[in-house]
């Protein structure tokens, strides 16, 4: 055997490989590089086809380099297989490397190396064995694992430490691929714990961890090893300096961390195991040097273990204190992980974490965005009734300078906290206003109705609130949510604003023109969204009953917007105009102060008609009217086709879009102004309805009552009455109308008319006549009386009340 005066420096480099690398690197453009690589690959391909020329490993190495640059190299797969089977170590080495880089379990070629691996696992040379083990652990498929598992188990038991440690990690890979094989390795894993070699110990601990995480039987079994593990750990912590494994004064931190992790898994939910490791954990927590990262890595793992097992409270406090100390560390990595850990336990160990609130809040000012984010999460979790005032100061300060990606979270977190712990209503309103001024664009949609609801509930602060909002509006109209709330308040409490006497704010003389100017600015500004302009318009309208001198100005604003391009604003303006003209006598009542708004669970506002608590809310009532026609109505209309002069189908669609806003469903973007308009329809004065009898026979009568709903829509109420002395049953009505008129029959109240008029049957019919044709209706009445069926048809040509 040749004697080498071999030093620790690198062995001689592969010249052909290095030449190629140089050539590639000297290419000045991407195109040139591609050219070089194409040439090289062609040469490599040619070489692969040739007989063994001693340069095979160099060629494959070149291909692997090219592959790393991102170029395709699949044509080298078979070469890897050939090289692995070679008897030359240099070729095996590169071959296995190639297999790990080019082959994975999805490639067919990977199966071809199974045999080589099998052979090499029992090679006489441990470095060859090592190659096989490494490759198996890297890309072994489930099949290969099943095939080679017994061999690995053998190596786990009888080989030197160099091979044992690799076999252990191979076993780990096998178990991950084929769970059932865990059983096979359990005994060997257990015995490995008595080894002294750190590499083997480490591998054993990893293997046992894997087994315990996969099966609860294994977990039970390995719990018995807790005393052994504690011993090993103690040895590492207390023993003297061991140069082989020392890292900055810590003896084998990698092994320590793995041991702590395994202890955590074993101690979880188990008192006995947790007790057995209590002292050790306390020892590690107090003795580990925390001046370097490596020490902190061990401390960190210790803390995680303490907090996860059933540790005694003193130890838990110790662990949380370590985290608290971490928060003060100069190293931001340490601060970051302290935060993440505290976040995980803020629910369970709330008081312990509260002790470090000051430091956490300071971290809101950290330079690092990740630390800031964590500090925000934690701070919000730590807000309580006792610290709400001071915490909110810090959070609002944070909000004014925080990075944009955190604003939404911060704003919403502040709202939630304010809602839960507000010490006073004024404080609550002030806080929300502050947020809207600072970050109004980042808050959720529900904020506006929620705030409005809060304001209406706080009647003692109406004056204060409207003053503050007015001032905010004057300085900035870009934050939509703020502007919306401000407009609403000004509209609602404008009289308080104009009175000018509010104790809590500085006196400010506000005249009617000022207020209207402010609202008009919002109306005209291109920054205002449609919803915002809607708020402003409604507010302007509401002021018409709260101011005295400038009502004409309001009238003209409202009439201008009657021809606004925006449909929403136009509709409002038109209706407000109507309120000025035809319904002026109602204007004061309609625009009255809103009552306290009830809040339903979704945070939407549910408006109740003023002074009419019993009546159901108009919009929801209308919603049912818009629902799809009932099946029986469909049948009825079809049957009537032959009655009509025209034979076309009657459309079943709900009333056309142009009809009254009563038919529009209540959306989430509802402003109080909208509710007001919805009430308008309900309060419309109707002259006492005249009932017209359209059918009468033997005591059974049918009357109709008509009500005009809008320009083209009307409701006809049909009422059946029985004044005879025999019962009437199966009383049904069918109706037909001219082609262009839309008809919808609602369900009748019943179908029996007892004798003597004890009860009646009513049925509502909705008609829509957009083309304003001459309205006629044919009604077929059918019922049973005295055992016989009666069927009659009547035609109605004139409708009273239209």
């Amino acid at each position, binding site marked *: 055997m*040749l004697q*080498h005066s*071999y030093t*620790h*420096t*690198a*062995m001689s*480099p592969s010249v052909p*490989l290095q030449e190629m690398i140089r050539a590639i*690197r000297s290419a000045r453009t991407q195109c040139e590089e591609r050219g070089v690589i194409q040439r090289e690959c062609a040469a490599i391909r040619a070489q692969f086809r040739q007989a063994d020329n001693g340069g095979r490993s160099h060629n494959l*190495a070149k291909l*692997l380099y090219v592959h*790393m*640059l*991102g170029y395709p190299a699949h044509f080298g797969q078979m070469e890897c297989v050939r090289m692995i089977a070679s008897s*030359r*170590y*240099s070729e095996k080495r590169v071959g296995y*490397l190639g297999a790990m880089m080019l082959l*994975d379990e*999805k490639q067919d070629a990977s199966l071809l190396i199974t045999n080589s691996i099998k052979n090499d696992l029992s090679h006489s040379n441990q*470095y060859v064995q090592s190659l096989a*083990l*490494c490759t198996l*652990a*890297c*890309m072994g498929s489930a099949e290969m694992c099943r095939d080679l598992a017994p061999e690995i188990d053998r190596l786990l038991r009888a080989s030197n430490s160099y091979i044992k440690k*690799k076999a252990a*990690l*191979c076993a*780990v*890979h096998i178990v*991950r*691929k084929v*769970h059932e094989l865990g059983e096979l390795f359990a005994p060997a894993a257990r015995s490995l714990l008595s080894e002294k070699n*750190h*590499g083997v110990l*480490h*591998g054993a601990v*990893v293997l046992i961890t894997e087994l315990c995480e996969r099966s609860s039987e294994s977990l039970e079994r390995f719990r018995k090893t807790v005393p052994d593990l504690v011993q090993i750990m103690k040895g590492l912590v207390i023993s003297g300096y061991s140069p*082989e494994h020392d*890292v900055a004064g810590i003896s*084998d*931190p*990698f092994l320590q*961390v*793995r041991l702590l*992790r395994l202890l955590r898994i074993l101690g979880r939910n188990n008192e006995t195991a947790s007790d057995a490791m209590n002292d050790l954990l306390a020892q590690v927590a107090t003795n580990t040097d925390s001046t370097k*990262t*490596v020490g902190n*890595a061990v401390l*960190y*793992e210790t803390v995680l273990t303490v907090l996860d097992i059933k540790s005694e409270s003193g130890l838990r406090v110790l662990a949380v204190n370590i985290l608290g100390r971490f928060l003060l560390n100069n190293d*931001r*990595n*340490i601060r*970051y*992980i302290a935060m993440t850990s505290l976040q995980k336990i803020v629910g369970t160990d709330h008081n312990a974490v509260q002790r470090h609130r000051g430091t956490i809040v300071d971290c809101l000012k950290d330079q*690092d965005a*990740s630390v800031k984010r964590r500090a925000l999460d934690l701070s919000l979790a730590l807000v309580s009734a006792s610290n709400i005032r001071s915490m909110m100061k810090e959070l609002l300060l944070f909000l004014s300078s925080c990075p944009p990606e955190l604003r939404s979270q911060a704003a919403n977190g502040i709202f939630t906290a304010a809602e839960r712990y507000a010490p006073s209503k004024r404080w609550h309103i002030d806080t929300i206003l502050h947020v809207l001024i600072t970050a109004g664009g980042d808050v959720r949609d529900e904020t506006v109705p929620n705030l409005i609801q809060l304001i209406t509930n706080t009647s003692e602060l109406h004056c204060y609130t409207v003053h503050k909002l007015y001032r905010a509006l004057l300085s900035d109209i870009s934050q939509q949510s703020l502007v919306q709330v401000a407009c609403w308040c000004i509209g609602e409490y404008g009289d308080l604003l104009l009175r000018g006497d509010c104790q809590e704010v500085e006196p400010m003389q506000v005249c009617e023109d000022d207020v209207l100017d402010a609202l008009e600015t919002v109306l005209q500004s291109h920054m205002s969204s449609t919803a915002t302009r809607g708020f402003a318009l409604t507010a302007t309208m509401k002021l018409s009953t709260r101011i005295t001198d400038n009502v004409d100005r309001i009238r003209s604003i409202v009439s201008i917007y009657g021809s606004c391009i925006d449909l929403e604003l136009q509709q409002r303006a038109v209706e407000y105009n109507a309120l000025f003209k035809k319904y002026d006598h109602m204007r004061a009542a309609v625009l009255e102060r809103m009552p306290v708004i009830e809040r339903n669970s979704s945070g939407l506002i549910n408006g109740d008609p003023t002074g009419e608590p019993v009546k159901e809310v108009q919009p929801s009532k209308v919603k049912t009217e818009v629902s799809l026609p009932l099946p029986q109505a469909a049948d009825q209309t079809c049957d009537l086709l032959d009655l009509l002069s025209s034979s076309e189908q009657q459309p079943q669609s709900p009333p056309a879009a142009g009809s009254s806003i009563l038919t529009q469903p209540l959306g989430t973007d509802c402003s109080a102004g909208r509710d007001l308009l919805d009430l308008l329809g309900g309060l419309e004065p109707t002259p006492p309805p005249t009932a017209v009898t359209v059918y009468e026979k033997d005591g059974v009568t049918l009357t109709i009552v008509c009500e005009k709903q809008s320009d083209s829509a009307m409701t006809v109420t049909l009422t059946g009455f029985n004044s005879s002395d025999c019962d009437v049953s199966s009383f049904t009505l069918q109706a037909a109308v001219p082609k262009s008129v839309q008809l919808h029959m609602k369900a009748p109240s019943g179908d029996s008319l007892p004798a003597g008029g004890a009860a009646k049957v009513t049925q509502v019919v909705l008609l829509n006549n957009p083309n304003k044709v001459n309205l006629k209706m044919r009604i077929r009445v059918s019922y049973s009386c005295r055992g016989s069926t009666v069927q009659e048809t009547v035609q109605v040509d004139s409708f009273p009340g239209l």
Partner: protein
Amino acid sequence: MLCLLRQMRFLLLFSRQGRLRLQKWFTPMMDREKKKIIRDMTTMVLSRQPRTCNFMQWKDLKIIYKRYASLYFCLAIESQENELLALEVIHRYVELLDKYFGNVCELDIIFNFEKAYFILDEFLMGGEIQETSKQIVNRSIDASDMLQETLEEYMSKPAF
């Protein structure tokens, strides 16, 4: 339970210009996926501000990165793993390279990339730490090199 759960998912080395110098994947993955991950990692890491911490959250993994001279080391670990220890893993690998090459620099890794892999494969295996002693890893590499050298010399000598 995931069968792909292991300590480390992948290790990437790349230059300040984003050129890949080493890629080790500890779980099987499509080439397309690998390329995407490389793109994502280089973009994320290279755009980090100077005084930020070395940890990032990416999908369900934690990314630990550290710059040594002109090379970025980027290690992806499972979310329950110890980030501080991951930094130590990176540092240990750098130390091993340094011992082998003697004041290692990026060029060493470029021109001797296969050695960098051999060293890595003596330190980590299957996404876990294989050997915790620096000296043992170094000795193993030297012995493997010697085996290679010896056999090659032996093979190239004329038979007498």
